Every structure is written in C-alpha cells, then in structure tokens.
C-alpha cells in the first residue's frame, strides 16, 4: 500500500480525455488527496481554480485546440505548484514553462507517484 502523502491536499485535475482524467483522479484519491474536477475544458478549470483553494494542479498541456498555459500561468503566479502531462518532447514546451515538472504520456505509475510526492508534499 502506498503512503497517502497527498492527505489534506486539494489537487485540480485538467485533462480533456475522460479515461485519462479518471486515471489521474483515482491516483490522487488513492494517495489521499481530494480532486477538484476533473475538468475537461480550460474555462471550466479556471472557474474551479477561482472557486476552490488549491494545493496543486495536474494539467494536460495540449487540450482540444489550445494549451492549458493560461491556467498554469495563473496558478504558478499564486504559488500553486503545477505538474504537466505532456505528449510532446520537453523542448517543444514554451520557454516560460520549461522548468515546470512534467511526465510524458503514457506515464509510468511509479514515476508519476514519485513526482507527485516531490512536488506536492512539501510545505
């Protein structure tokens, strides 16, 4: 059994593929976290972010026709850590977001858990 290191953390999930969103939601919940969402659209996610206090967010970079950069920018500027889910190579990310922690799809469960622990547990 994995340690529930996300206990007490509210994590926003933005992923436009329903099945993948389910996956991420279940992972966060198994680690003890509470999922805000999952949202399938950028606007929906921004509304959720405004309505809830968050300790983190997991965002798919490329949504249907646009990126999740606007949300990431907003969250990072308010000190909420973000993890990107990406199908792209790292160097096709915008320079602004090159240092945001990310996993490439399809991700390895262990790798994802380790990253979540590293990013969301502190503080």
């Amino acid at each position: 059994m994995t340690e529930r290191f996300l206990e007490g953390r509210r994590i926003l999930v933005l992923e436009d593929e329903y099945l993948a969103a389910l996956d991420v939601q279940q992972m966060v919940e198994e680690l003890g976290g509470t999922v805000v969402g999952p949202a399938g659209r950028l606007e929906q996610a921004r509304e959720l972010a405004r309505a809830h206090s968050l300790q983190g967010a997991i965002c798919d970079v490329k949504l249907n026709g646009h990126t999740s950069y606007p949300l990431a920018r907003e969250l990072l500027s308010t000190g909420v850590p973000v993890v990107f889910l990406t199908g792209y190579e790292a160097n096709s990310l915008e320079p602004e977001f090159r240092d945001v922690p990310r996993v490439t799809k399809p991700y390895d469960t262990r790798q994802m858990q380790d990253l979540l622990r590293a990013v969301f547990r502190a503080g």
Partner: protein
Amino acid sequence: MSSSDTRYAEQIVATVSQPIVVLTGDLEVEMVNEAFCRAFAVTAEETEKRRLYDLGNGQWNIPELRRLLQEVLSEQEAVHDYRVAHDFEQLGERIMLLNARRMHRPERGDRIVLAINDITESERQRDEIEGRREFGEKLIDSVREGLLILDWDLCVRSANQPFYEQFDVTPEETEGRKIYELGNGQWNIPDLREVLERILPEEWSFDDYEVEHDFEGLGRRTMMLNGRRLDHLDLIILAIRDVTERRKHERRQQVFMAELQHRVKNILNNVRALANQTRRRNDTLDGFFDAFMSRVAALGRAQDLLLKSPEDEVELAKIVRVELEAVGAERGVSYTADGPFLCLSPHNAQALAMAVHELATNAGKYGALKSGGRVAVTWRVERNGGNVHFHWRETGVEIDELTPIRGFGAEIIKRSVPHMLDGTSEFTLHSDGAECRIVFPLPKDD
C-alpha cells in the same frame, strides 16, 4: 642612302617581329628579314634572288596575293590589312593580313615592301570566344532558374528569360539598374547587402542564401540564392530559385509529424487508462480481457475513421454505423440511423464514438440486439447551428426491472459526454428498452 643609314634601317628591319619581304618590280625577292625566315621556316639563301611565286612549292602563288601585287598596288601606293588566306603545305591553314607599299625609285627600280601579319591564331581564338559566348548565352537561357548577371557595382548587366518570367518584369525595368532598386526594393535587405558587398568579394561565392519577402506582384515567397563572382569578366552571377512551396511543404510535414506523435501518445495513454479502469471492475482475467479488448477495438475503429477522412473530421453517421456493425447489428434489420450530414472534429468524434460503443455493447449484452429488437438512432442539429441532439432508442426488449443502469459503460455514457463534449446525456430504461439522449454544442467554426 648612306651606309650608316642603311645599317640603321637594317637593324630595325631585323628586330621587327613581323615577317617583311622586299620585292623588286619583277616580283623577285630582294630581301627577307629574320622574322620571315622564322615564320615560314626558310633561310634567306633559299629565298632571296628568286621569284616570289617560285618559292617553296609555289606556296606564294596565291590568287589574292597576285591581285594585290599586280592590280591593287599598280593603282595605290600603299595597302593596309589586305587579307590573304592560304593552306600552306607545311604550316597548314594560315590567315594573313598584309601591309604593302610600293617604293618609287625611278633610277634604281621600284621596290615593293610587304609586311605580313599572321592572324590565324587570333582568328581562331576569336571564333572560340564567339562560340563560348554563344554557348554561355544559350546555357543561361536554357536554365530554368532565374539568373541575374551583375557587374561589380551590383548593377544588372542582364537577366535570363526565366528571371523575367519569374518576377514578371521586363528587361527595360531591370537592365542597368542597381539590384537594390529592382521591384519594390525586394533585394534591398541588410543580410543580402552584407552577402553581396562583403562575403562575395572575399569568398567569391555563396550558396543557399534564403530571402523571405513580399515580392511585388508575387506575394510572400521564399527565394534561395547562389552567387558567383567571376574574376576575368568582372561579373557576378546570381541564381534565384523559388523554394516557397518546398518550405511550406517542409513546415507542413513538421506540423504533421508533431501532431501524429501527439496523437499516438494520447492513444497509448487512453489504452493505459482503459486497462486500468477495466481492471478495477473485472476480477477475472477472461473478464478483463474481453472488456478491455472490446474497448481497445473501438478505439481502433475511431482511429480508422479519422485516418480515412481528408480533413480529419468524421461523419456522425459513420461513427454510428461502424459501432453498431461491430456488435453485429444490420442496417434496416436490427438498426436504423437517420439524420443530416454532420461532421465532427477529431476530439468530438472520439468522444461520441466511445459513448456509442458503450450503448451498442450494452444493447448487445442486455438490450435490443440480444432480444431481437431494434435500435433507432436519430440526430438533428438546432436551426442556428448550436447544439446537436442525438437520440438512441431501443425497442423490443423485455425489461423485468426498471433498475438504474450500472456498470462502467453507463458511467462512461453519463460522465464522458459532459467531460469531453461539454454536453449532457440522459440514460433512461423504459419497459421496452433503453433510451439515451445526448445533447452537445458544435464548435463555433463548424
């Protein structure tokens, strides 16, 4: 003439590099100079005191020479550049220009001085140059690329026909003008100036220099330039190739490859999620396998539909048909599908395909496609192009209990529609079969 004058004259004649012959009035050779002997490979001894026409094998017995000596010089005192052509036995074809002068010396007898200028080589070279020039011109005109010939001041000396056609300009607008003044100043670019004014003089050539610009009359094009500086002719040749289409194609390729990679990653991620979610709801390996493979096959069918359409959009009718036929339904027999022609974006198509797959699987396991009933699928679009209304109605099913629908399939139908299509879905179980209503908006630009 004094003897010192004679020696003076003799020294001059001996030094001159042109062959000189002095003939008596009877056309007997009085004197030939060293240059003559060298040029015609004879000695003074075998030449002097003999009749001109008897020399050698009669090689000087040339009709034009006879005419010069007998007719022309009888009327004129001097003749310049009189042309004589002859095939000498040992020397071959020779073309000569002769200067001839009659010296009147009533007391001692007239003399004729002939100075011979052998222009054979220079004629041959001139022909060769002419030939090369013609070759160059024809070559330049036959090349498909636009060529600009500039002098070292970067003024246009000439251009070839493909250049005029390529840029839709005339020679009048082009020749004599500085390259920077052509068209709408399209070549007046700092980078190109640097290349022409600094790099070309140093390196003598450059290749594959690209210029992207809004060209007058052509629009936005990308041109690739090769330049060569010619030393002997003080010219610069610029070859200009329009690579706009090629670059566009390359960019499209890059975009396409990135899209493809992204799509593949997404699909793999979906398969991963499918496996995960199916595993949670199936205890047995066989149970998992059947459920998992059925959904993966549906993913595959959706991809097939996407790949087949040129614009990446999928017809709703095709999605319905493909999923129903995959569970063995027959159009007109066990299902009907009616609605207007409607194409969905790749994202929406995949989302709807997933929902329809679950509906069809459900009908096959528990519903109309198991009991021999029918599935009626219809759809419509709101008049102002806003929402799509999708309706699925099964009939001919005996439902014992109107229990709320459960299972992963139901969850997918219920939750994926709002999540991915930004729409609503209602699933109702009537006494004679299941009904599902899905409403979702069309993207604004459809």
